[in-house]
């Protein structure tokens, strides 16, 4: 399998804190790659570096053979790397459908936005299809701020998908949502993966990760510690050490050991 998105030897420090320390990660085309690690191990920072929100101090990021190190988030998104945020971020005071429309343009020039209307019929059809896919079609006319937390998560997934990115980075898709919804999200990801979409997922819910991911990378103190299939990772003693050494994340350890 070819590598679609990769980070090579990335380092990033905030003040004296080394959030990322010579960290590397490969996401193979068509895979669902999991990224786990104790809190503060640098997962989200790595996401931010890969999507252009944070410029790395050293190292490089490449997507589909192009170097995208330090590119702006809109550029990265335009190339085909979509992401969601750990704390769901939707546009609260416009409608659900308008939320979808913001993302449809992807790499359209800003000048074009001045002369064209808010939506074209094909865009609305595409947006409604994706809303239907995540089960929000009935709420399309509603102000997005009135959605529940779980619905917001689904909306965020939907509006990333409407732009048809090649790879999607999900930051804790199962965080803070109920079990039924976790399963729904898992199914959606599997279904999309079957259609050829590549995923990179940060998640603390081990059961979720072990069930849907093809490969898992474990991060610890800003470095990639182990990468392999879920079974290999689960069996690796260094992983347990990382979680125990990290200390505060006991739940994860138990889940890892049991799950």
């Amino acid at each position, binding site marked *: 399998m070819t590598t679609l998105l990769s980070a090579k030897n990335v380092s990033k420090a905030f003040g004296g804190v080394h959030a990322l320390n010579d960290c590397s990660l490969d996401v193979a085309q068509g895979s669902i790659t999991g990224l786990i690690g104790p809190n503060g191990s640098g997962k989200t920072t790595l996401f931010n570096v890969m*999507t*252009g*929100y944070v410029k790395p101090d050293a190292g490089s990021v490449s997507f589909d053979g192009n170097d995208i190190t330090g590119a*702006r*988030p*809109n550029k990265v*998104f*335009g190339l085909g790397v979509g*992401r969601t*945020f750990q704390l769901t*971020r*939707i*546009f*609260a*005071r*416009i409608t659900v459908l*308008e939320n979808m*429309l*913001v*993302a449809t*343009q*992807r*790499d*359209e*020039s*800003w000048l*074009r*936005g*001045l*002369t*064209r*209307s*808010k*939506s074209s019929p094909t865009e609305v059809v595409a947006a409604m299809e994706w809303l239907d896919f995540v089960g929000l079609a009935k709420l399309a006319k509603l102000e997005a701020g009135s959605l529940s937390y779980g619905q917001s998560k689904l909306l965020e997934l939907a*509006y*990333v998908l409407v*732009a048809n990115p090649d790879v999607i980075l999900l930051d804790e898709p199962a965080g803070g949502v109920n079990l039924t919804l976790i399963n729904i999200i898992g199914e959606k990801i599997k279904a999309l993966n079957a259609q050829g979409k590549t995923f990179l997922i940060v998640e603390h819910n081990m059961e979720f990760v072990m069930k849907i991911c093809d490969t898992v990378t474990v991060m610890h103190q800003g470095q990639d510690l182990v990468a392999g299939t879920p079974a290999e990772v689960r069996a690796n003693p260094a992983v347990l050490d990382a979680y125990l050494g990290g200390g505060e994340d006991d739940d994860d350890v138990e889940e890892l050991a049991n799950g």
Partner: protein
Amino acid sequence: MRKLSNLWWVALVLCGLVLPLLMTNPAYRQIAVYTLIFTACATSWNMFSGYSGYVNLGAGVFYGTGAYSTGLLAEHLHMGGNGTLFWLVPLGGIAAMIIAIPVGLIALRVRRHTFVVITIAIFFVFQLTAINAGWTGGSAGLPLPFIPWQASYYQVPFYYVTLGVLIFAVLLSAGVRRSRFGLQLLAIRDDEDRALGLGVQVAAVKLTGFVMSALVIGMGGAIYAIFQGQIYPQFAFDPIFDITVALMCFFGGFGTLVGPIIGGLILESSQQYLTVTYSNGSLYLILFGVLFLLVILFMPRGIAVYAREYWTRRETKAQADQAALAVGGQS
């Protein structure tokens, strides 16, 4: 009725067209001209600040630039005191847009409160320049060509020119609202970084909106300058203008299309009227303050938003009542 239907807009424009025919008192006509200038400026201000959430308290920069560029052009082109001066109005708007580019490049680097403070600071730089620079006439002011129209007629051409500018401003604002560009401004208001991550070129979109809003405000300043016949730095670059325009939008409905029109028409006309009528002992200021407080107290999101929610509630209630009636009829 949740959105003003086209019929309402036509009625509003017709009212605007016939008003000077019914209102022959020059004092009232003067109030009408100022009201239209402020309403146009508020509409244009709202088109950027209301949609994007970037509260610009330096709109006086555009207004003063429009006024001064008009005055200076009239002086250097040796223009006479007649209707041809109105050709300077669009030029005043364009001058304001040109000035808005560097101002926007500086101010739009920061967000929220910092942005507000920076716009105020830049505003005072302009005011001080106008007071101290030699080519502006300094604090003695800058005279414009005197227009020898009859007192009973003088306001009428200004009224119709300003009405035209206001209609243009509303059409522009409505156009932005319907465009992809307008949607991007709203997305920036709600979550700028997220919008950036969805491919919105936020820096370019913000600057474009900022510069576009300068056009009508600069035109307003140009009309003001010609109307006054003499401009002074502290009135052309007036901090009260910055605040008034913003207050009109908050009063009528921040970020809505009709909000600034409601706010501008009510606030400016009532302020001017109260000033004329109750100028004794500054009573007008108290009345004006009370009016403002009442609206903020009972309709904190502005009249337009309040009205929309009121109608939605009524419609929902009416539907519910009808449903209940239907159920009652069956049993």
